[in-house]
């Protein structure tokens, strides 16, 4: 698992380098230099991660993988909601859902915190900064 990012970056850089070699000679100079330096850094990273850990040193994150994956999915879902249904609907939905289902707060607490958070964002961005809040993809098409 600890070599996964380095391996991923090595594959990505190899594809990047292959694409860069298709450019005209002057245009490819910088991408090729960056690509080879990145491959060197990936190699150094792999070497540095092969060292055995000292006793008492921090080991891999102990939180369950599913929980970490869940945090990423929540964030991605929130960003998608912002794009699709807009700020004024996505913010209360996200704050309420994350408090109720991830934080295990009561329905009432989740509701009033979501209302306060949405009001604060509306006051700050729409009233004070006079910004038109994004209405969402579904509501701008019609």
């Amino acid at each position, binding site marked *: 698992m*600890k070599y*996964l*990012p380095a391996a991923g970056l090595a594959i990505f850089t190899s594809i990047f380098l292959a694409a860069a070699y298709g450019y005209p*000679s*002057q245009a490819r*100079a*910088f991408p090729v*230099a960056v690509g080879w330096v990145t491959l*060197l*850094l990936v190699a*150094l990273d792999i*070497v*540095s991660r092969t*060292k055995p850990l000292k006793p008492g040193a921090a080991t891999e*994150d102990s939180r369950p993988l599913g929980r*970490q994956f869940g*945090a*990423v999915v929540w*964030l*991605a879902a*929130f*960003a998608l909601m*912002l*794009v699709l249904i807009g*700020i004024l609907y996505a*913010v209360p939905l*996200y*704050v309420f859902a994350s408090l109720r289902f991830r934080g295990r707060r009561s329905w009432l607490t989740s509701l009033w*915190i979501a209302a306060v*958070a949405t009001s604060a*964002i509306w006051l700050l*961005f729409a009233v004070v*900064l006079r*910004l*038109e*809040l*994004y209405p969402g993809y579904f509501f701008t098409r019609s």
Partner: protein
Amino acid sequence: MVTAVALVGSYAVDRNIGNVVVTAIFDILGYLMIRFDYPRLTMVVALVLGAAAERNFHQTTMMSDGNLSIYFHRNVCLILLAGIVCLLAAPLFRGLRR
């Protein structure tokens, strides 16, 4: 709440919803970097200085008609290159010595 303000704030910069998507992608990338113990600050520095570095690299390469040996002609270049090599090699040697 912090996530909500961060994402709405990224939209507020230039009223572009694409910024929200970019922020979410970099949120996830930042989380993965913490998870796998990579420094975030160096990436921020690279994002800030990358464009200037590329522009100046092309400018220098055009001055020398594509000849990369221009980077080894002046003492200041050699000193900087030696510094980069030392900085890259230092953690490796420190690790091997332990």
